[in-house]
């Protein structure tokens, strides 16, 4: 069985990069168009439903992208299987925790009216 996939990881890397690019463009457009960027505006954007979705998606894509990148580094620099497994588990746990944390935070602060 192949533990480390070739093509799929590469596709995930490309797709997540593209998603990040689109989300950054979308986020920038949302921020730049419209009234001045003060605290209220930031707050309103971040707690709005579409703002929250963009932020969660952004971190999810970032994690996926980071996962493939970290995996590549481990494949090149960490030859022992045991060490690979531990490093990759730690990386996966951190990336997963980050996404969950972001999602929970956004959900908790979602403003009731959207």
């Amino acid at each position, binding site marked *: 069985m*192949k533990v*480390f*996939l*070739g*093509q799929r*990881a*590469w*596709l995930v890397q490309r797709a997540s990069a593209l998603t990040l690019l689109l989300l950054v463009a979308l986020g920038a457009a949302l921020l730049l168009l419209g009234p001045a960027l003060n605290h209220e505006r930031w707050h309103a954007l971040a707690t709005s439903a579409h703002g929250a979705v963009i932020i969660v998606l952004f971190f999810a894509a970032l994690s996926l992208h980071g996962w493939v990148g970290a995996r*590549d580094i481990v*494949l*090149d*620099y960490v030859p022992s299987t045991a060490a690979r497994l531990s490093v990759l588990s730690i990386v996966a746990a951190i990336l997963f925790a980050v996404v969950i944390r972001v999602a929970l935070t956004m959900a908790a602060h979602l403003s009731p009216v959207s």
Partner: protein
Amino acid sequence: MHISIYRYDPDSGENPRMQDYAIELAPGDRKLLDVLMRLKDVDDSLSFRRSCREGVCGSDGMNINGRNGLACMTSLSALKEPVVLHPLPGFPVIRDLVVDMTQFFAHYHAIKPYLIDDGTPPEREHLQTPEQRERLDGLYECILCACCSAFCPSYWWNPDKFIGPAGLLQAYRFIADSRDTGTVERLAFLDDVYRLYRCRTIMNCTEVCPKGLSPSHAIERIRLELVRASS
């Protein structure tokens, strides 16, 4: 002309060292190989490979002032002095500028560098349209000099598992060939995190190829073929 050459003789038990040479250019000297051949007359312990002396055999790949190239294709006039010569980086050194190409050619053999044709053999030759033939341009010219693979950081890290730019260019040469029926099996072999996907598109290979070929472009085509095959 001042030349500083990497010298190493494993039988002597001594560490590798750089040896400086000073040699007057002769009127007929045009390429670096001309000078190396005359140096060899003076110091016959100096080892390097060469054969065709015109960029066809691919045997005199070496690192010239920090860049891989063929000594026979490198003009003396373009070289900064002292000219520093090293064996191809990342390859095991046999002696002086002669490196061990065993692994490099093992990768080449692994991609099955010959036509696979499961159909009935044609009565005479396989015919190709001019367009089909054109798809092999930029691929068939490779002389397996290893300048690209020996300039690829990914190949330096994983020379045993990553096929490297030269082998992958050759792999695509057969994938692109209209007469070859082995595309599915070739792609299945290449869809591997080490064999193909160690390439990070650093493009050193394309930058350095003395024949002006683009292995990184061929690698991109293989990736796209894989995407097409899986969708």
